[in-house]
């Protein structure tokens, strides 16, 4: 198969899956098979594309001309390759997990769930492979709209309200700011193609570049840079597989991926560095990192805590991009991969706690390690990776981000990274520790101090766990795979690193 064909199919297959899934809706087993087959094909296709990109090629597929002089086309460069690789690999894991989760949880409208999930993945692939800003924007909006039914899946008053926040912020920022930035760029330069070295150099003065950068960075609401982060905690009402794949990997990473891509290929690293308009955004990102970490500490609902943790981690990536140094960019790109594995593991575990032990609040999870040792262990592994401790992949990305701050000569930002890591330790590690070493009796009675951001129905005081009671096997497999991924990435980070090196030194 040619690489070009593989690129087109990689975007088309999930969409085809979205059509087939409802057709197979009557028989759940067939329906899940369709999802799994699509996911497997997608991973295969991405593996076909990878060698070409790793060898230094930038395969390109022209689709059609949408507006005069402005076409929709795909172009796979290393950064997009990383993103596509992660998303397609984790789709398989999530699909396996979903099967266990959705059935154990007796969710309604599962067909709709799987169909929109597939569309979201297709859109993610489109974002990863987009050859210009227009193409990216199209899939960006498709991703927003296709995830709305997933967020509001439960159809309750809470879910509806969360859906409104979700859609309001994501569409608001993308139409109000991002689209404006795109059209402005187009008016200034007459092109929107992702070009090495950027397209704005020499076309705009410093002030314009500064405003544009702000429009892009805040306009990409999916990157959840404060103050446009509220949608992410709101999205936690969705079923856990959605939170795991979309709101720890696909959607949020699509956001930061776009930011990085814009910095590299629209502005150009050197150009941006010379102008120096990104400096204040470094501090916005730093503030987001710290504030979100602090908020995470106050959240008792596990998913809400993870959501704020994600907001904080996303700003690592933005920070790396805004440093506009080679090492910073490498750190950003690697963090997209590393954080994805760590955070998806954590979310999988959160979902497993919920379906197996019916626990959503952290304060109820003392001693949970006795009933669910595997899940709690995986949670520990994921936590280490997110914090950035060896022997987990998260170490490498933090390493390069730290080097990036040094390269830029910003010791203060290095300090922020360090403090934030400590905060990560403080809000993540107690969960597995208490799970293993505390006794369940110490659990306080469930009170109504729910987290406001994300209330998920079930908090009934379930019977004290007696003996081992793990999540369904399908869930455990997925958890095992992703937590193993965290380990593997520690020992073999090279593919990701090499790709990122190609990005900064083409």
């Amino acid at each position, binding site marked *: 198969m040619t690489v070009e064909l593989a690129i087109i199919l990689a975007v088309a297959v999930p969409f085809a899956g979205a059509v087939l899934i409802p057709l197979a809706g009557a028989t759940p087993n067939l329906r899940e098979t369709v999802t799994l087959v699509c996911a497997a094909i997608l991973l295969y296709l991405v593996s076909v594309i990878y060698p070409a990109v790793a060898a230094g090629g930038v395969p390109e597929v022209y689709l059609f001309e949408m507006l005069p002089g402005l076409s929709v086309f795909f172009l796979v460069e290393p950064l997009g390759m990383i993103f596509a690789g992660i998303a397609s690999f984790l789709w398989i894991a999530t699909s396996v997990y979903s099967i266990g989760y959705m059935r154990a949880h007796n969710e309604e409208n599962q067909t709709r769930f799987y169909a929109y999930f597939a569309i979201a993945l297709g859109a993610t692939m489109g974002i990863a492979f987009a050859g210009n800003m227009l193409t990216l924007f199209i899939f960006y909006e498709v991703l927003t709209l296709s995830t709305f039914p997933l967020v509001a899946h439960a159809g309750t008053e809470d879910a509806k309200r969360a859906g409104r926040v979700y859609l309001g912020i994501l569409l608001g920022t993308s139409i109000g700011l991002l*689209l404006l930035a795109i059209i402005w760029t187009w008016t200034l330069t007459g092109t929107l193609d992702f070009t090495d070295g950027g397209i704005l150099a020499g076309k705009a003065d410093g002030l314009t570049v500064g405003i544009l950068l702000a429009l892009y960075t805040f306009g990409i609401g999916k990157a959840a840079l404060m103050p446009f982060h509220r949608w992410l905690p709101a999205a936690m009402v969705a079923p856990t597989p959605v939170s795991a794949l979309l709101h720890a990997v696909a959607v949020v990473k699509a956001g930061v991926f776009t930011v990085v891509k814009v910095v590299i290929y629209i502005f150009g690293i050197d150009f941006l560095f010379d102008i120096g308009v990104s400096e204040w955004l470094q501090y916005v990102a730093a503030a987001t990192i710290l504030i979100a970490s602090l908020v995470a500490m106050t959240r008792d609902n596990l998913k809400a805590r993870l959501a704020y943790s994600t907001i904080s981690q996303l700003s690592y990536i933005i920070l790396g991009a805004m440093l506009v140094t080679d090492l910073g960019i490498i750190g950003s790109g690697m963090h997209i991969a590393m954080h994805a594995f760590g955070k998806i593991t954590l979310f999988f575990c959160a979902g497993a706690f919920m379906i197996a032990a019916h626990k959503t609040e952290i304060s109820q999870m003392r001693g949970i390690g006795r009933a669910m040792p595997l899940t709690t262990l995986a949670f520990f592994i994921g936590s280490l990776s997110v914090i950035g401790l060896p022997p987990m992949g998260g170490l490498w990305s933090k390493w390069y981000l730290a080097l990036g701050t040094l390269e830029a000569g910003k010791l203060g930002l290095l300090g922020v990274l360090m403090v934030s890591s400590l905060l990560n330790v403080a809000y993540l590690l107690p969960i597995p520790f208490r799970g293993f070493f505390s006794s369940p009796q110490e659990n306080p009675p469930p009170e109504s101090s729910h987290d406001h951001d994300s209330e998920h129905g079930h908090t009934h005081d379930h019977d004290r766990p007696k003996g081992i009671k793990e999540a369904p096997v399908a869930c455990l497999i997925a958890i095992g795979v992703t937590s193993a991924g965290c380990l593997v990435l520690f020992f073999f980070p090279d593919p990701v690193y090499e790709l990122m090196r190609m990005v900064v030194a083409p």
Partner: protein
Amino acid sequence: MIAAQYPALQVVLALLAAPVCLILRRPRAAWAVATVITWISLAIALSLLGRVWETGVILYPMGDWAAPWGIEYQIDTVNAFMLVIVTLIGSVVMPFARASVEAEIEEERIYLFYCMYLLNLAGLLGIAITGDVFNLFVFLEISSLSSYVMISLGRDQRALTAAYRYLVMGTIGATFYIIGVGMMYMMTGTLNMADLATILPAVADSRTIQVALGFLTVGLGLKLALFPLHLWLPNAYTYAPSAVTVFLAATGTKVAVYAFIRIFFTVFGGVEVFNAGFIPEILAVLAALAMIGASVVAIYQTDVKRLLAYSSIAQIGYMVLGISMVTVTGLAGTIVHLFNHAIMKGGLFMAMGCILFKIGSVQLDQFEGLGKRMPVTMAAFVAGGFSLIGVPLTVGFVSKWYLVQAALEKGWWLAVAAILVSSLLAVIYIWRVVEVAYFRPPPKGSAEVSEAPLSMLVPLWILIGASYYFGIDATRTLDIAFVAAETLFGPPQ
């Protein structure tokens, strides 16, 4: 050669077919006549557009009376495109109308509907095709009078008062227009647009011409429902029969916008009306007020048809905004939006027709669970709603893109903000409907899935499909729009 007579046939066919419907009286027969005539008109319009595209302006002296004494039809890219829009919408509306009209209009009045529709069509095509300002008035009145009648055919008794109020305001508008024409004639002694364009610059400084321009602006502003002259529109669209609303919303105001463009850019083309005074600024402010104000009002509507009517007023604001920029990009944005809005709003109002057909009401509370009961119709509504919001791959996105670009080129930041805010407001009013339709359970005792007949669903999806087709590949419509805009800016022929 019959092809040489196409400009005349374009108007005359529909005009002659109207009385035929009166004679036939049988609903189905009248429908068949109207449908066939519309389709033939579409074919003529397409062939005219093709000819203009290849060989340039077509001049057709009516009855061989040479201009400027006789009435001359002048077809360039702008009005050829308008002819296509009007006949295209008509061609899709007609198949839709059969079932819809049978459900909403008493049987003994149905033939009247088709008769009036044909007159309306003839009027709209006449406005678009003529090169004579007085002839334009006559066609304007033909289309207006027939639309008053069509609106009054609505089931709700409020349709009568809506028609009456529209009649009063419409007549005032048309009379204002004719006063303006009279003043121009006083100063120039001609009614031919091209002739006017060459003579007007010499007398442009006279107060008469300035007053004439004022009258023309207000008169046409009433017709195209320019804020704050839009008061007739919401009730008229809400209470008219669905098929009428679809046709009027998609074509009526669009043709008035065209007339506006024609007067300002062709007739007054040699006069730098826009450079003197503050007309562009006034228009831009009114447009922005319409875009934001009408969108806000739309959010609070409980009748979905009315909601869409207010959204139309906002969309007309987009078009006027594009005009007010007086740049090729802005004008092209307006012209392409004429087409884009026609297909998307036509589709949305058709969805309303389908719901009225099945549910009998388009009050928002009747939409509960409609996502399950009428999945095909509601999917079309959502798809059309995306276009209204301006989601990429829809025609709404294309229009918005060019209007924003034009405003950026001009440095009109407030206009940019108005466009973007207005699209965000569109998100809200569309989403109110979506939430009710998809997140509330159907009321008890309601039937299972029950859709409108295929004869209504197919036209609905043709328009919705078109609003995606021309959103994905907008090169064709944009090419036409840019050539049209350049023609309007070009030297008067």
